[in-house]
């Protein structure tokens, strides 16, 4: 059985790899099988990068790259037009993007007429709550609107587990608030 495959698009330094790891941690907590891996290469701040997840109820045996994801997450809005984010995405696919646009507007920009499009202004949410743009955690909140394999409360636990030893409690709480807010504000269309 093909596992659910996710591709993340972001820029070096935006926490995309960390986000894919938090998603994996969430899947672990749900008793699922999972993989999280970056597009391997030199890590350069600002350069377009990709990360991937596989999630399944069965053991995952594939060790090749993800070429036909069911879900694409675009963390940086500037990548929507500079990178082919739809590559390999099927007609039933889901695009989740951090941008100011509505799902209908984004469909026009991408030329994506089928499947599902989710938009959320994660940069704005993050700037408001955290005081700076750290969009990986809000994107996980928005993801929970269209991805049922990891429940919202599990995702919050996974974020806490990921940052527990690295960040101050106050900063973690703000990350969790931005995750919740993005979950509420995400528009599905």
């Amino acid at each position, binding site marked *: 059985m093909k596992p659910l495959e996710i591709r993340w698009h972001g820029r070096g330094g935006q926490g995309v790899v960390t986000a894919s790891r938090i998603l994996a941690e969430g899947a672990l907590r749900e008793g699922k099988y*999972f*993989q*999280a891996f*970056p597009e*391997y290469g030199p890590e350069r701040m600002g350069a377009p990068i990709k990360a991937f997840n596989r999630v399944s109820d069965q*053991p995952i045996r*594939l*060790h*090749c790259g993800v*070429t036909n994801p069911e879900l694409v997450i675009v963390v940086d809005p500037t990548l929507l037009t500079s990178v082919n984010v739809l590559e390999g995405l099927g007609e039933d696919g889901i695009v989740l993007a951090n941008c100011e646009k509505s799902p209908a507007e984004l469909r026009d920009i991408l030329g994506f007429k089928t499947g599902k499009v989710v938009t959320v202004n994660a940069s704005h949410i993050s700037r408001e709550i955290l005081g700076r743009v750290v969009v990986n955690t809000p994107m996980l909140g928005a993801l929970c609107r269209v991805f049922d394999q990891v429940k919202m409360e599990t995702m919050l636990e996974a974020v806490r587990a990921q940052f527990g030893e690295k960040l101050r409690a106050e900063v973690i709480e703000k990350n969790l608030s931005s995750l919740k807010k993005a979950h509420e504000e995400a528009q599905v269309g």
Partner: protein
Amino acid sequence: MAKIMGFNGNAAVAYAMKQINPDVVAAYPITPQTDCVERFAEYVSEGLVDTEFVTVESEHSAMSACVGAAAAGGRVMTATAANGLALMWEIVYIAASMRLPVVMMVANRALSGNINIHCDHSDTMGARDAGWIQLFSENAQEAYDNLIQAVKIAEDMGVRLPVMVTQDGFIISHELERVEILEDQEVKQFVGPYQPRYPLLDLEHPVTYGPLDLFDYYFEHKRSQIEAIDCSLPVIERVGQEFGKVSGRSYGLLELYRMEDAEYGLVALGSTCGTAKETIDGLREKGKKVGLIKIRCFRPFPKEAIVKAVSPLKGLAVLDRSATFGGFGGPVFTEVRSALYDAESRPLTLDFIYGLGGRDIFQEDIATAFSRIEEAVKTGRVEKPIDYLGLRE
């Protein structure tokens, strides 16, 4: 009750090392192994292990320190990759010649040049004749399991040889997956206390390691080393069964997947085996009688098990993730074909070199290998006994 962790291959190996708690680790960082040694160094600095961690200035020194510490009587481990393994070279041979049970994780990476940090098997395949036992891992779970077993195999009194545990660089070393870990106590009991043989630090019984050994005895010493590695095969199997009793995951020299009634087989090592299993399931649904022979233990080469598994087949595709420049096919192919020479029946065998420098291998590539071997059998014609998968012409 097994504990589930989200580990990449490097983290899984570092965790196994922590549970084994070796006396000495001497290692030098190199991509894609660095993450493993860094994590282990953290365990050292946090006081979670009793290990003396030797921060050396090169891999040559790392293996030299390992040889010294192992001869002194310690349980010793290290880790490396690619060019690091190449720099260790002469001491890698010496560790085996002195019959020192050092355990080394190698995150398989292409041996330059040009410079490349991604996976192929050219590093450990180059070291295949160095006298080390070599265990390949399909995923992070197997890297963890193999590392624990490696200690027990290496330290078996009838073996006493160093063991290399490999995992595909980045593909496994940097892929976070679900890994079931044993309790610390279970690992401790499984590997048991280390009993050094002829330790240099036993001052009551002084010994000499590595003396000059010329035409009068060198040949005899090599012959006894050949015997030792050949005789490790049943030990590797036994330890694999014993590990199964503790963990629920048994290991053999090979893993056969859907081979019961297979007509066409594929031989592979490492992470490709997972993708191959998925491909085989797909081809089986289309009525193809195909199966996988996964080589877990490449050194010593499990000749009899391979011949038994593949001789009933009509066709066999061997996947080699390294090239032997000027040789007749990749190292796995030459071994497998040579083993089959004396078999009463043997399949038509083709070699496919693939994945050099991290070139990805997809299910379609593996399906191509199967269709090529089927076609060769059906037409009775082999145009290219050695070919390439995923290469631009």
